């Protein structure tokens, strides 16, 4: 999913928006997804995220990542459905032995968890695909009074995500070339199988962190300064911010009033 993370340089109505609008939107998706448990409401949230992704013309690019996330979501559904044993049993995973009953409540809760995860992750992928990291950090420092160090840390982590993923792929290839097989039914063996992948990655990351510290020191980081002025908000941005705040507020009020649980 390394291709899914990061800025996509193109023109779209979503790209043109101010970073504040898009950050607020992603936060709104996060808050409403967590607030509601009703599958219908959560499906609505996901649908709205997909519409924004389509408007930003990044839906196709995010599709592979979306497919991977969907598999993960299905696993969530499965676990919730199997391990929540309350309510009426719908059917059994192994019917002849009546093992692993699936209840209606479990299925719904699982679906809710899956939808939630999809909405939240996807909204952040859309944010990163349509907004330059620099614009986000400048906005955070200039408008949200986030200390520069934290905003810079956030930007640096994003900068090294592709590097980390590339290194993970190389380590994975090097170990598989030596006959490593991580798949298999035994969970203990599976866990042990990750050491050949995890140890080189951790050591490489530590080395990288040291070099990063050297690079920052040599370029005068931490001597104050560092942030340019933020882009001004346009009327379009103000209108959208007001709209988002109203929608999020209304949804939360509805939730407090007892809808969508």
């Amino acid at each position, binding site marked *: 999913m390394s291709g899914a993370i990061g800025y996509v340089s193109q023109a779209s109505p979503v790209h043109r928006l101010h970073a504040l609008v898009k950050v607020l939107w992603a936060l709104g998706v996060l808050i409403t997804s967590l607030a509601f448990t009703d599958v219908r409401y959560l499906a609505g949230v996901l649908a709205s995220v997909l519409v924004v992704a389509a408007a930003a013309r990044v839906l196709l690019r995010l599709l592979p990542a979306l497919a991977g996330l969907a598999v993960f979501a299905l696993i969530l559904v499965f676990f919730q459905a199997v391990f929540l044993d309350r309510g009426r049993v719908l059917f059994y995973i192994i019917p002849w032995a009546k093992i692993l009953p699936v209840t209606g409540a479990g299925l719904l809760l699982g679906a809710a968890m899956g939808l939630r995860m999809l909405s939240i992750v996807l909204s952040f992928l859309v944010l990163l695909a349509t907004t330059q*990291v620099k614009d986000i950090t400048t906005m955070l420092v200039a408008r949200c009074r986030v200390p520069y160090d934290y905003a810079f840390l956030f930007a640096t982590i994003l900068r090294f995500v592709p590097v980390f993923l590339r290194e993970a792929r190389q380590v994975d290839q090097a170990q598989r070339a030596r006959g490593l097989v991580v798949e298999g039914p035994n969970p203990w063996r599976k866990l042990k199988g990750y050491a050949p992948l995890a140890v080189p990655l951790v050591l490489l990351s530590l080395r990288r962190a040291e070099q990063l510290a050297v690079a920052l020191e040599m370029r005068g980081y931490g001597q104050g300064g560092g942030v340019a002025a933020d882009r001004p908000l346009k009327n379009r941005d103000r209108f959208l911010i007001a709209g988002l705040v109203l929608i999020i507020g209304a949804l939360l009020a509805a939730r407090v009033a007892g809808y969508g649980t």
Partner: protein
Amino acid sequence: MIRVENLSFRYAGAQEPALCEVNLEIAPGSFVGLVGSAGAGKTTLLRCLNGLVPHFYGGTLTGRVTLDGVALADLSVAAIARTVGTVLEDAESQLVCAEVEEEVAFALENLQLGPAAIRARVQGALEMVGAAHLARRPTASLSGGEKQRVAIAAVLALRPRVLLLDEPASELDPRGTEELFAVLGRLRRECGLTMVVAEQKTGHLARYADRIVVLDRGRVVVDGPPRPVFSRAAELAACGVRLPQVAELAAALGGAGETTPLTPAEGRVWLEELLGGGRRVRAARG
């Protein structure tokens, strides 16, 4: 002017010293090639020239390094970096920003320069390394050679007088190596930058450097202009240094000292002299 006086250094926890009584004077505008096998002390010497030793990497240090008469020990790493720019061996980890333009502006923003000054310097630095067309590219999408050039531009933006490079071509393909050295040569010619370059590719150093310093187990063992240095084949081989092939041939044919040929074209002239011009004319006519 950088002056290294009786410099010895041992990393904390190490048994052997990394540098032993090194003495060097690096004149403004010179291009110094630093050669030697792995562990000879090249990287440590560069770290002493930019203050990372002892400010960042601790250990036992004796002797001193001065920059225009001021001891580096009395300056901060960031202050030294405004005069002595450094490109680390792994350029990738030196790129801290998401986009090329930001990357080159990073040190300038830390200096709190105004937006107009920053824009002008960023543009100038990128043009100097032939990377103006990369300005809006994400740093993660650059090729190895492009990363190296952007890392150099990011250092140049501070307008240093000295540039240190630690094996800049080790990961590059032949074309990338060629382009990199062409950029270094131009920086020196047009901006009068002093260069200290640690490199295994001695063929390129032979063409661009005006001085070669050979390190072996922390000591300077040979120091001089490329031609006489590369004529000392036996000593260099003992230090694990590769000779340019033409120089190796000349050494095997009796040596040439100051007139040692370094490139194929020079090799031809030198060989023809050795073989005697007259016979060549006969061979060509016959």
